[in-house]
């Protein structure tokens, strides 16, 4: 039984064909980015914070970059940060990387079920956070651990969540790395991609309704921009002129799918801003200074009721999607190294050295300190338990917080569960 329409092809018309985007390199290929145009640092103009949105639109196909080939900060976007701030950002970035490495290993050792690194993307969350106020709000994805680290969140609390252990304030209910902390302006991470993006807009709308002065930043990955939630966020932000920064972290991969599957062959992710008439910027995500400057610009705009900005941070996911993923199945293993925008930690380090504010010894020391800090936190956290030991005590807790009060049917189930586990 065929449901096909019987209408015939027109013989003198060309045959239609489906285009299926394919990444430039697959396993076995030699990744060669020599044809990729990398705009020079300092070349992108910086519109005034009160410029019309349309003035930013040329920047949605450019690339805001500050650090040049000689590791100097150049051009109108140079945020002119003092060395103290630069060193703080470097320290935060190094801490994130060390933390990721240790927790990845922990998962491999069977101490927890899952982990996700942000290797190569450390500059983005860290510099964004440093550009905002302590009171500003984030609706993050799972790759913005840098936001917490940059606000000096206790590493042991992050680990407690990862181990679902007795110290886990989420009581073992969430997958590892799905942090949440109101006091740190870090909204609960969702497993459902994209949902947080329009939520960020809602938070910003509420701030506007209440005449607050705090703004909000929403985060999303390149792949997840395809979700309807992305469009909701853009539409509501545009309609109500919400004081929000909408950040797309384009690390060029979504598990095994390259960014072309999300539309990157035809337009940048920053260009989406044009269609909604809001401000848009495309930024070198591996350049901590550019990230800082862009977020600062957008935050000033939002704070002065000049509305939302969409920022694309262009970067590269240097490792697997998560501990469940092996990228050698779909891309060359040396692609990360070949990718031209470099390593964000190395670049910031080199900049500080170039400024005469840093050297290799101090860097080694910083790394060691971070390592020691992470190890100490790990030791402390593991005292409170690792995942394989969890889920046996405090069974009753799993029936709390479904509602503010436990209704009869859940109370009955709690009794049953407690009986089962006696």
């Amino acid at each position, binding site marked *: 039984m065929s449901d096909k329409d019987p209408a015939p092809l027109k013989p003198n018309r060309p045959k239609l064909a489906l285009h299926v985007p394919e990444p430039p390199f697959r396993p076995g290929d030699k990744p060669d980015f020599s044809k990729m145009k990398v705009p020079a640092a300092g070349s992108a103009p910086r519109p005034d914070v009160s410029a019309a949105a349309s003035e930013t639109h040329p920047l949605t196909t450019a690339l805001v970059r500050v650090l040049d080939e000689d590791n100097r900060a150049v051009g109108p976007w140079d945020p002119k940060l003092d060395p103290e701030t630069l060193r703080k950002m470097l320290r935060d970035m190094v801490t994130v990387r060390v933390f990721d490495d240790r927790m990845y290993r922990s998962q491999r050792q069977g101490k927890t079920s899952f982990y996700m690194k942000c290797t190569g993307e450390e500059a983005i969350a860290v510099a964004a956070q440093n550009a905002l106020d302590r009171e500003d709000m984030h609706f993050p994805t799972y790759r913005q651990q840098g936001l917490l680290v940059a606000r000096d969140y206790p590493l042991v609390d992050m680990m407690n969540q990862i181990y679902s252990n007795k110290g886990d304030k989420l009581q073992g209910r969430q997958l590892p790395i799905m942090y949440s902390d109101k006091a740190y302006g870090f909204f*609960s991470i969702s*497993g459902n991609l994209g*949902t947080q993006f*329009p939520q960020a807009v809602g938070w910003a*709308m509420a701030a506007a*309704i209440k005449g607050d002065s705090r703004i909000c930043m929403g985060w999303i990955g390149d792949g997840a921009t395809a979700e309807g939630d992305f469009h909701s966020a853009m*539409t509501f932000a545009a309609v109500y002129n919400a004081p929000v920064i909408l950040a797309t972290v384009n690390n060029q991969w979504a598990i095994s799918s390259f960014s072309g599957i999300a539309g990157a062959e035809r337009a940048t992710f920053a260009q989406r801003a044009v269609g909604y008439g809001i401000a848009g910027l495309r930024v070198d995500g591996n350049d901590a200074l550019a990230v800082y400057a862009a977020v600062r610009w957008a935050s000033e705009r939002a704070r002065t009721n000049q509305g939302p900005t969409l920022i694309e941070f262009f970067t590269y996911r240097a490792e697997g999607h998560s501990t469940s993923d092996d990228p050698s199945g779909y891309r060359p293993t040396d692609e990360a190294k070949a990718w031209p925008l470099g390593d964000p930690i190395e670049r910031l380090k080199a900049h500080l050295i170039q400024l005469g504010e840093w050297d290799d010894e101090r860097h080694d020391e910083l790394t060691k300190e971070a390592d020691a800090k992470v190890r100490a936190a790990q030791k402390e956290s593991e005292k409170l338990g690792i995942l394989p030991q969890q889920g046996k005590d405090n069974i009753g807790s799993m029936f709390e*917080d479904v509602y503010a009060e436990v*209704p009869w049917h859940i109370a009955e189930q709690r009794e049953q569960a407690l009986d089962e586990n006696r």
Partner: protein
Amino acid sequence: MPTMNMIQALNDAHKVMMRRDEDIVVFGEDIGFFGGVFRVTEGLQKEFGKQRVFDAPISEGGIVATAVGMAAYGIKPLIEIQFADYIYPGYDQIVSEVAKMRYRTAGEWTMPMVIRTPYGGGIFGGQTHSQSPESLFTHIAGLKVVVPSTPYDAKGLLIAAVEDPDPIIFFEPKRIYNGPFEGHHDRPVTPWAKHPASEVPEGHYTVPLGKAAVVREGNELTVLAYGTMVHVALAAVNEQGIDAEVIDLRSLVPLDIETIEKSVEKTGRCLIAQEAPRTSGFAAELSALVQERCFYHLEAPVERVTGWDTPYPHAYEWAYFPGPKRMKTALEKVMAD
């Protein structure tokens, strides 16, 4: 006491609560200047201003999502989905986010919000203005599901819902916005004014969530119903002269199981009425609960009177609607066995 229809009662609930709590924000499609396609939000924008009452883009997903963000901020969204049939684009945000937020954050973030939406058939709205999707929400832990059946309850339940710390899906039976409906579509419409529950007190009062109403006492049979079906059921047992106890559930989650059990233990028979399609409707849950908890009191199988497992067909509205004839057959069956 003022006499109100259900629309006026709901409108009044908004006003009472918005005057008491300036953190309440109302938005939805066409609800601002115009006051909503069913006029429930009429006059609100004028009284409370555009920062608290505003039209939303046609994006049910965006409406719920931004409400989540607002609740996270600490204000209270009281939003409208224009028809329950159009709630599905917001379903992911409701199921994955609204319902689970308190749990996944161990109480750090909560989602006190009310999502109002007109539901049910009886106005010749065809497949996409007639649906009763309540069981798609009763299955989702973390949501409360409320259905009023009179102006008095509508106001009291909506106020209770707004004051409740949990997220609530508030289904409004649109067929009885303007008057009770006993299922006789060929008879003239009775206005609410003739019904005692159209007397709606001024100001603040609540009808507590989780408490059913025994709207008719009886000894031979227990009828469980909600929304429009309360009136259809009442009329049917009266017409059949059955000494039935009719229970208006008012809230499906949490459910007033005590009142149900007590009644079925007394009567030994139970009939459940819902307008939604039969398979996996909320009546199935009720049926399962009753037989699990009252098995040794049951003298006959628990019966379900429901809509059919088809979409709601425009011209066959009255052949679809579980009206007096379907009630009669079921009543006869449950009483005969």
